[in-house]
């Protein structure tokens, strides 16, 4: 297994995609909407950006193209799913962010408690 820590940090879009796919398989346009919702509107990938990101994540082995086809839908529609490795990467990134959050909270804490921490 590759060294996950060496891949970090991953981009916000990658993380968002991994988190959306962690819920279950999704197709292109649904991913765009879910990413936007998850990021509270801060990430709004276009189709070009999205598929370029998916292409990279497939290459990295974080996500994979689903073999499943749904006959009632548009034949061109593709579903993507998260791989076990993808879940590990997302978890590692969240852990990294968690540490960062912790550090940040301490540094930005009110003056008194910060002094206390130093002492």
């Amino acid at each position, binding site marked *: 297994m590759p060294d996950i820590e060496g891949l970090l*940090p*991953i*981009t*916000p*879009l990658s993380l968002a995609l991994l988190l959306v796919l962690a819920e279950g398989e999704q*197709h*292109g*346009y649904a991913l*765009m909407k879910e990413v936007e919702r998850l990021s509270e509107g*801060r*990430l709004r*990938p*276009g*189709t*070009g*950006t*999205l*598929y*370029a*990101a*998916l*292409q*990279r994540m497939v*290459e*990295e082995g974080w996500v994979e193209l689903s073999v499943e086809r749904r006959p009632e839908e*548009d034949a*061109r*529609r*593709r579903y993507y799913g998260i791989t076990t490795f993808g879940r590990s990467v997302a978890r590692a990134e969240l852990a990294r962010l968690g540490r960062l959050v912790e550090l940040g909270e301490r540094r930005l804490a009110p003056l008194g408690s910060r002094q206390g921490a130093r002492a």
Partner: protein
Amino acid sequence: MTARVLAWLYGAALARLPAWFAAHHAEAMEESFTAGYAEAVRERGLLRAVWWALLDTGDVVRTARALRRAPSSSSESVEARGASVEDASPDVERGAFHIRGAPHAGGPAIGARSSYRERIMNAIAHDLRYALRRIGRNPGFAGLIIATLALGIGANTAIFSVIHSVLLRPLPYAEPDALVTVNHRYPSIDLDASVSAGGFRDYRDRTRSFSHVAVQSGWGANLTGYGDPVRITATRVSADWFAALGAQAMVGRTFRAEEDVPGNHHVVVLSHGLWQRQFGGDPAVLGQAISLNAEPFEIVGIMPPDFRGFFDRRSELWVPLALTETQFAAGRTSEFLTLTARLAPAVTLEQARTEMAALAETLKQETPDQYPSNWTLTVTTLNEVATGDLRPALLILLGAVGFVLLIACANVANLLLARAAGRMKEVAVRIAMGAKRWHLVRQLLVESTILSVAGGLLGTALAWAGVRALTTSFDPEDLLGRSLALDGPVLLFTGIVAVLTGVAFGIAPALQTSRTNVRDTLHEGGRSASTDRSGHVLRRAFVVAEFGLALTLLAGAGLFMKSFARVQGVDPGFRAERLLAMSIALPTAKYTNDTVRVAFFDRMLATLADVPGIQAVGTTSVLPFGGSWATGSFSVEGYMPAEGEPGPWGDLRIVSPGFAETMGIPLLRGRFFTEADGPGTTPVVVIDEVLARRYWPDEDPIGKRITRSNPQSPDAVWWEVIGVIGHTAHEGLDAEARVQYYFSYRQITLPFAALAIRTAGEPLGVVAAVRSAIQSVDPEQPIADVATMESLIDRSVGQRRLAMILLGIFAAIGLLLAATGIYGVMAQMVAQRAQEVGVRMAMGADRGDVLRMVMAQGARLAGIGVGIGVAGSLALTRVVQSQLFDVRATDPVTFLAVTAILAAVGLLATAIPALRATRLDPVEALRGE
């Protein structure tokens, strides 16, 4: 439709993706795009969906470019920055992704450098994208700007399409620039007359300037034998006439030289319209004979659908002129032919003019007694003839729409400046981060150009609607069968106007923005006092300019309105209400002499007098406002015109005894004609008050005599004045008054007449009864040109009305834009000076003081603008004076009125922000900083 265009665009963007990427994803991307667009339409409406689709397409283009670039080592951080910093600093925008790992086969080549051209294209694409995003961020603002520009550009396009159709487009004939007409010129009375038969022969045979010389004379033909008898507007033309215009028959042929001879002239060429309407478009009519004015004519040709004669636009058939030897011998004064000539190859207009002037001198030397000493021949191009009347009015309208566009530009520039002030901080940040100022200017100009092109597109739609409305206001025959159209040259004009407009209104805000003082702006939290001030000065200058331009527009519209009211106020000299007009022409082959003609008119008048609903009826050779006129010179017994003075000359009408009473023309002295005035009694004439005043200013004209013959001749017929009646307008309410004199149709008989019928009720209600009454006298006799007198008068002022309405619309647009302009500036000023107002109020100023302060500011701007506008308008009066009737272009009442209107609108627009200022809470205002 929209969806298909967008899908096509998206497909074009997909095509730019590297092949290996497209093979994997293109279909799925297309599907996502389609799904996204459909949902956006459903949930956010068409406009926002289109916007989304365009942004998404741009995203694919950006992706494609990035995929082609070599992956950079720091790509991961680029992506991070792109996704998070982009909103804070719009300048930083890269594709929010990267390709990691080894390049694929056929993928991006490592180390490839983009070419110069590619970099330029990238820069342009970047600017476009940036501009689109900024526009999209505030669609309401963009919409306001686009609507303003659309008004300006639309008005310009509509008027330019008229100018293009009427003034610029070549006449619809072969090599139209070589077509000219020749006139007899009488400089002393400023008259360009037609030519005589003898003259025509001289100008054709004794000159070298022309390849063709042809003449024509108006004609009316009663067509019988095909359903109801109908009167057809027709023209008699010399054999070379069609060739001179470069026209050929669509079916059959035009005339041969041997047919242009009396006796051989019973051939006819039909217009396409008449052929379709009367003969069902049947080619078999060729060679058939039809009855025109009770004589048989053989149909030899049919003209193409778009052919119109130049001087006879309404003509529907043509027959040979076949001038007789008597006509050729009649001399110079028998001026009844309109001449059309084509300059010979390589002959210039100047050469032709020189030759004709020389010929005029030769003719005068040959027979000095035939010609007035300063008589000459003029050569005028048909282009000049075609545009002469409309040119000044159209150019004034073009000027007016130009002003509208300038006001629109100033307004938009103001809106952009106002926004620029709000964006100082963003710009300062970008400059601090290393953005080049030129780069900023370029981006802002791209933005303004996109807005103006959008305005141009919308404006074109407005112009299209405007042109459709204008088309109905124009007589199609005035356009020689061509239509007003938004065609290639007009659209090119619009395109150029749109781009120039974009630069014009974009440059000031762009330069203003780029001058942002970075340190001050960042220090002062986005409100740099210095730049704010200069921006404000600029905005005020624009408001002043808008008011100046608006005043000029209003003054123009006001003058045209007053002029129109004056024209409408002119008394035509008769009562126009409940007056029906029509014309009738007797075929001379059937009504061969005066006796039978008078008998017909007598019976017709008697029959008509009994028709219920008709109160009075009269006939005249030419009817006021009927579109034709007849003038003639005469001599007054005992009166010799001074040397160089033109002799007596004026409108002559040949009328029935009931004419004056029917028309309601007042009898001032003596009597009008009676049934008793006839061939056997004293020749009598009735004159109008103008003639009476001019030649017998201090005497009673009754019993005086005039003649139309040479007064020296012993055979001269002397006509005794028996009455004086009121003067009537003839060609138009605004036309120059000529003297008028009348003869009785029993003493001079013509085979045609115009009927004036006074009705008890609605004039058009009796038409059917009139037609059947006339056909009870002669079943083959048609009537033509049926119209109410009121509609004829109305038509005569149509061009003035159209110009007035258009100027009024343009002035209203200008006023509206100027009002919104001053409102915007004052509102912004109030907002920015809230703190100052707060301080003043805290220091004890009351609401009245604040109101006065703000109002004074607005009044100053409006006042300066109005002052400049008045000065400018007064300088422009020369241009409009020729188009005004009975109004001086410096008319003080008009100027005062429009100044008052503009001032009132300006104060009203200022009052809203001023009142808002008085309601400021001083505490809030002070805390706001």
